């Protein structure tokens, strides 16, 4: 069993806008690229060109369809999912070696690969399915919130954000301190009704999701009144209107 810090100085995390995410997978691959080359072991790809390619990804996009009860247009939601860096992270407390831990300074949940024995208990404990065992390395991999980018003095300050946030073409991913109510991310959450994923699990996730805005509201109530009189909604009526209007220009 591994202990969680009593509190963390900051709560760094992501805010993901489900009203804006178009499901393009840019974040998935940018993450793969950065984290293959950086933190810990590379993210492997088994049977890479074969019948059953299986690679390690720290971030994946799932797409769900919602068909409103009682009819109406079905909607698709693109749902990027990675570690939520929970305040009460069950993946940490379940770890038998202390390899999984939550950082006291910023709340990032990490795996110390040197101490990981690849038992997989943490993946079992995570209700979100956010951890993946690397099949080549035999260690547990997960989102690091790009801990090796966000403080990296070799990067320009503007680039000290997670790779997924930097690359997102639609700007659907936001990074910041969710523990600071004045931060941009906290304000986004407040303005847009940001929500926790599966709050009933009691994990207190730091990452938040912004809900899709209501859709399909142009149903016909607001049609514009015709400029042409009812009996003359044809070319003659139009040209008479045209002449009257041109006189006024």
């Amino acid at each position: 069993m591994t202990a969680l810090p009593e509190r963390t100085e900051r709560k760094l995390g992501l805010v993901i806008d489900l009203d804006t995410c178009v499901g393009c997978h840019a974040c998935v691959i940018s993450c793969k690229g950065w984290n293959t080359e950086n933190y810990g072991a590379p993210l492997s790809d088994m049977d890479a060109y074969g019948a059953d390619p299986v690679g390690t990804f720290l971030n994946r996009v799932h797409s769900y369809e919602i068909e409103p009860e009682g009819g109406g247009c079905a909607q698709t939601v693109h749902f990027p999912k990675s570690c939520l860096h929970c305040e009460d992270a069950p993946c940490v407390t379940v770890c038998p070696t202390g390899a999984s831990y939550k950082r006291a300074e910023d709340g990032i949940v990490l795996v110390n690969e040197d101490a990981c024995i690849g038992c997989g208990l943490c993946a079992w404990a995570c209700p979100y399915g956010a951890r993946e065992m690397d099949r080549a390395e035999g260690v547990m991999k997960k989102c690091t919130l790009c801990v090796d980018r966000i403080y990296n003095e070799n990067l320009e300050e503007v680039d000290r954000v997670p790779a997924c946030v930097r690359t997102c073409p639609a700007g659907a991913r936001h990074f910041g301190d969710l523990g600071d109510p004045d931060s941009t991310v906290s304000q986004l959450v407040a303005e847009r009704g940001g929500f926790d994923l599966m709050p009933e699990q009691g994990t207190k996730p730091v990452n938040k999701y912004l809900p899709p805005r209501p859709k399909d509201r142009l149903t016909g109530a607001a049609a514009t009144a015709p400029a042409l009189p009812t009996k003359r909604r044809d070319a003659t009526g139009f040209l008479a209107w045209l002449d009257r209007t041109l006189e006024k220009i």
Partner: protein
Amino acid sequence: MNQPWIDTSPKVSDEIRKTTCYMCACRCGINVHMKEGRVAYIEGNRDHPVNKGVLCAKGSAGIMQVNAPARLRAPLRRVGPRGSGEFKEISWDEALGLAREWLTPIRKSDPSKLAFFTGRDQSQSFTSFWAQAFGTPNYAAHGGFCSVNMAAAGIYTMGGAFWEFGQPDWDRAKLFMLFGVAEDHDSNPIKMGIGKLKARGARIIGVNPIRSGYNAVADEWLGITPGTDGLLILSLVHCLMEAGKIDLDYLARYTDAPLLVDDETGLFLRDDGGKTLVVDRATGHLRPFDEKGVRPDLNASHPGHRTVMQLMAERYLKPEYAPEAVADRCGIAAPRIRAVAAEIARVAFDEAITLDQAWTDFRGERHEKMTGRPVAFHAMRGISAHSNGFQTCRALHVLQILLGAVEVPGGFRFKPPYPKPATAHPRPHCNTTPEMPLDGPHLGFVHGPEDLALKADGSPARIDKAFTWENPMSAHGLMHMVISNAHAGDPYRIDTLFMYMANMSWNSSMNTGGVMKMLTDTDENGDYVIPRIIYSDAYSSEMVAYADLILPDTTYLERHDCISLLDRPICEADAAADAIRWPVVEPDRDVRGFQTALIQLANLMELPGFVHEGGSPKWQDYADYIVNHERKPGVGPLAGFRGDGEQVGRGTPNPDQLKRYIDNGGFFVSHIPEGADFYKPWNMAYQDWAVGMGLYNAPQPYLFNLYVEPMRKFQRAAEGHGDRQPPDHLRDQIRKVMDPLPIWYAPFEDDHVDPEEYPIHALTQRPMAMYHSWGSQNAWLRQIHGQNPMYLPREIWEAHGFADGDWARVSSIHGAISVPVALHAGLNGSTIWTWNAIGKRKGAWALDKDAPEATKGFLLNHLIHELQPPRGDGMRWSNSDPITGQAAWFDLRVKIEKMPAQHETDPDMGVMASPVGRGPRNLRWKVGK
């Protein structure tokens, strides 16, 4: 707490090399992080005008593209039968020598025996220059099977269209309406734009049979029936005219709406100098349209003539365009169409925006402000790839113009070198002389029957029959007809087919199985009907197996390229910009960039333009050409850092130019001056700037064409006027489709298949992660899209009793496929779809033959024929738009039956030998220590 120490500031790379991605149509800037001379990580370039730092999945996976096991390694000469994939490696000297040996006799006898087509538009200004020097009329790039309808309709209507020509004003638009686009043209800029709209709370209306991707985040989704977009748009035009919500001031000043059309001929009234005339509303007199102080009258009276505005009123106010009349065909309820029209009108006119920016128009009138209609539109392939696509694209451009929403704040904005009207483009050229260059550029814009590419006997001059009566305005050629026509010897036989980056024996062709047979078919002597095939590709694609000679290309990081103002630059609405690629890594194989190979081949053949008198080469390779070629004095492929390094647009070649581009991040930007950045076609400040940049030789203000007079000239020919007459069997078609005002007609497939028997529309979409590529050799991306089910709407799913894991037989009048199915409720009820180009042939791309792409993936292409069904008249009617020849991919109608679950999709085209072997089993890719 025992937290381990971790290094939060690791060294990111030894060096960043900045180049251009251009693996799709976006042309994003990328930072390639190098470690120990190898590519370690790729991210977007923040300074780049196109992507401003962001990058898509495919761009981010570039490292797997550069290291792909499917890369070709050396020139190949076929040793087995065509299609087998059996080759031997040869040297470049042998390869280029062989190409010269094949091509030189053709050039001496009949240059048209060479058909040279490039599947991508990269460096089109260079490849067309090569083809012109060779002297063949048979050249084009891929626009004919992509989106030529959009491009040509835009240029004829307003001097440009979407994507490469312009973009929505993402920073000011308040309503954005997106037709048909899944993931094409552009990729990242559309996502960035949607992000900007969403951040401001602006609204998006998506019109698409499929609710995925952009349509999933659209505030309103109109799940339209494929092929009916034009009808919906003209119904919106009807509503807007009925409501009086059109911009009369804009129409009178900047469009042909006030031009006078002769009732008898349908041609514009002109003065003796050929200038079109309007009635001045102040004086009632006829005046040239551009005269200083003239106020063109939209509702003018002139005996025997009507204005374009009057003609439009007569047509579009007819009840046949009312929402109630079109709703069933479009699959959208009439009140919803009316509500969308009202919303467009409300935003355009009630939320108009005004910039305090003075400007002077081409009539010399000064305006103190710029008024914007903040409604922007975008569309590309979805509405283009139908046999009614040209007229549909025309309708959309006309809709924008009626709103006054083109080249104004908040609307659609051109990007240099556009706006550029059809009259400023070349006309097509097709006259060949042995051992001489062609008489001019191949592709262009026709303005009447006199511009068609016909031989003296009236037969088509080009192998693809572009610019003929079958499709007079085929501005991009018809690449999808080349192999079929060459095989049929219609209009004539060729000797050598030379292609670049075109997977014609697979996903780039209609009727894939048929094309494979055409490529391998032999005559009575046992010789191939298409005698020789040269092909250039970087990867072991399906098409490689069908070539006799392979010229292996480099990957995108190993080459020089220029993304040129002569071609398809990276301009933004407020800046001219161009860019380069340069070899950030050297190839580790015996491969050469295709353009360099073309230059070396031209030098061997001593093609005119490529060699000095005496035969010595002007350029050694493509980099040399990029810097030193001048298209006209002082104007070359790159606009930046010319002359002494400080000259822009015009200037002598600068030997340090490429270095300057590299130092500048791989691109060059020159901003349009303030006050010149809107109303570009009529704004004298813009016109003068464009002349200075070398974009125009002189100012060329023009009016937008709601009424396309050249189309009327073709109709008149079909009515019997003029010397150049269409064949009788095409007269009715020309009269019907070449209407100078937008019309809608049902897609041709509806006429020749029974809609009762084939009630379903079938489409493909491009996956965002693999847009504009067929690169399933990418180890990361194939894990996102490794197979492609056929998605069915709930209506069809339930009617046939489908369940998860089921398979279906999907049939068209032409063929049948067996495929896995999946439910997709957000779908037009009579439409099914799948991902494009995920299916692979066994043995291609260095994949295992049991890869899911080959066993569970499939192509819809097997159901689509390049010809319409025979009519018993002996004619080969192409499955194309009858105006431009654009491939009508999306006209397809099918039927579906449930079938027992299969082990593999059908048809199985067999295994090809891999000229590059197989990829490694596992990857653990880490470059640094």
